[in-house]
């Protein structure tokens, strides 16, 4: 069967299978607001509550964890102490470095002497 014949049959079917709504049906549907109470915005369904609560609780928990991790006063004080300790260490090492550089000529002399003697 070709496309045009199929379209022709479908068009014919469309015309015969598109009933107009009966008066009785319209009346029944229009009575709905008088007979049926609307659901309030509040829902008792567990799934609705899960959908509502899960993202909010997750966000809140994540914010709390981040707050504890990043914003704790004790840990930042400790970090400052550690930095101060490291700086102090650098100063000591730097001092030792200068001491070594002052004596490096003498050391080289000693090495040279040992080499010559060998």
């Amino acid at each position: 069967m070709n496309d045009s014949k199929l379209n022709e049959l479908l068009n014919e079917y469309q015309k015969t299978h598109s009933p107009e709504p009966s008066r009785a049906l319209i009346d029944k549907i229009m009575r709905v607001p008088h007979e049926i109470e609307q659901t309030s915005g509040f829902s008792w369904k567990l799934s609705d509550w899960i959908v509502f609560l899960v993202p909010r609780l997750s966000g809140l928990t994540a914010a709390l964890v981040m707050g504890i991790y990043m914003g704790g006063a004790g840990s930042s004080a400790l970090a400052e102490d550690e930095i101060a300790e490291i700086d102090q260490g650098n100063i000591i090492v730097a001092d030792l470095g200068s001491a070594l550089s002052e004596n490096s000529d003498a050391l080289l002399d000693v090495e040279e002497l040992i080499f010559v003697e060998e």
Partner: protein
Amino acid sequence: MGTDAITDEDLMLRIGDGDQTAYGMLVDRHLSQNLGYATKVLGNVSEAEEVMQEAFIRVWKHASRWDPARKTRFTTWFYRVVTNLCYDVGRKRKPQDNVEMLETVASDDMSAENVIAVNQRSEQVQDALDALPQRQKMAIILCYFEGLSNREASDVMEVSLNALESYLVRARRNLADILKDDKANLLKEIG
């Protein structure tokens, strides 16, 4: 401002506040079209009428929960409601149930023979549609008879655009095959 300027989504918000006039306007806009849709899906007017009644009860009851932030179009949502209700009716049908078929709306200038011939052909098309897998049938009804775009139909069926197009192609091919066989059988019976 004319009533046409008010969108279906606005009407839903007003219905949510208990506005019966808005409900009436929505019924006026969508009853006829969706009754035709349900009739084609079910092949039966009385069942389609029950479906429409239930669909509008859902509109009234749940309008207060309509969330405009979701950007869902009312027509898409309502087609989904009607589709699901049609599926429910189809599932509840017993195999031996004889569904009352639709009477042809005959125009005055049609002869009795013409009416019978149109009836027979329409029944054949209905049988062919019923023989299609559910998704192919929905695709052809939504796109061909309801005039929805492929994108809208894919939204109603909750499938991708590619899947919808594939259903359409297969549905037309299967329909042509089934109707060709029917015609051949009829000719054999007459001959």
